[in-house]
């Protein structure tokens, strides 16, 4: 029986954001924008979805009079990512086993 993939993470941009944040303490909005190659609007929408789900924390502040958005992964987000990777590896494992049986 396959574990279902978390629909919040099974989306290209949201998974990219979480994968970037999992390895760091914090990342600025512009950094996420550059690394994911997304548009500002889309990135904002996906960050809000992840925040509403409790997967990330978003801190708004200012630097040199410009607004600065910094994102952090939460423990809930890290756990969700871990479960997602486990579920995903289940699919690949099942795929390779069925390949071997052929």
């Amino acid at each position: 029986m396959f574990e279902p993939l978390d629909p919040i993470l099974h989306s290209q941009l949201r998974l990219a954001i979480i994968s970037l944040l999992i390895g760091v303490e914090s990342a600025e909005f512009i950094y996420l924008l550059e690394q994911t190659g997304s548009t500002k609007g889309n990135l904002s929408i996906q960050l809000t979805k992840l925040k509403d789900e409790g997967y990330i924390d978003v801190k708004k502040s200012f630097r040199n009079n410009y607004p600065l958005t910094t994102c952090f992964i939460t423990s809930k987000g890290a756990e969700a990512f871990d479960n997602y990777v486990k579920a995903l590896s289940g699919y690949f494992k099942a795929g390779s086993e069925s390949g071997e049986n052929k």
Partner: protein
Amino acid sequence: MEKEFTNQQSLEMIQSMISISRQNFRKGGFYYILWGGLFFIAALAQYVIFTVFKSELHWLTWLVAGALAVIINFFIMGKRKNVPRVKTYIDRVNFYLWTAFVISILFIGFLASQQALSPIQINPLIIMLYGFATFISGGMLRFKWLIAGGIIAWIMAIICTFQSYETQMLLVAATILLSYLIPGIILNFSKGNNV
């Protein structure tokens, strides 16, 4: 961008984003060259001032090198103010590690000022502490040249114990060169993950 994507694409996405995070660990090579280079020069200058000019103020070279390193460091960080930043856990631990190192060095200086340590004991203790910080830094960065640097520093600390004060100064310079400056140059110019 809510389009469906396959499990294979999902796996590739995770791998590519995680490798971007890893690259951030490897951008600090310049700072190793800056600090290592200045302190290497400071150690050699101290030797020259002590042996050739016989000045008692030979230790001032360290103060000058430290001040220069801090000024240049802040100047470069200031110039990169608008570069989007990402903060890694390693950045934070490294900050605390090297701050603890500087505080420990100041404590050794305090002991020396109280005549609780003889001058000949100072350099081996500093090199030992320096090896401690370098070894941990290398381990966190998974950078084998810096881990080896820490071990070299400990060996140098033992050798240093049996040398004269002047020779110790040269050994300090050699330690910085082998265990910090050269690994920094390798880190700066390497692109691979497994250096």
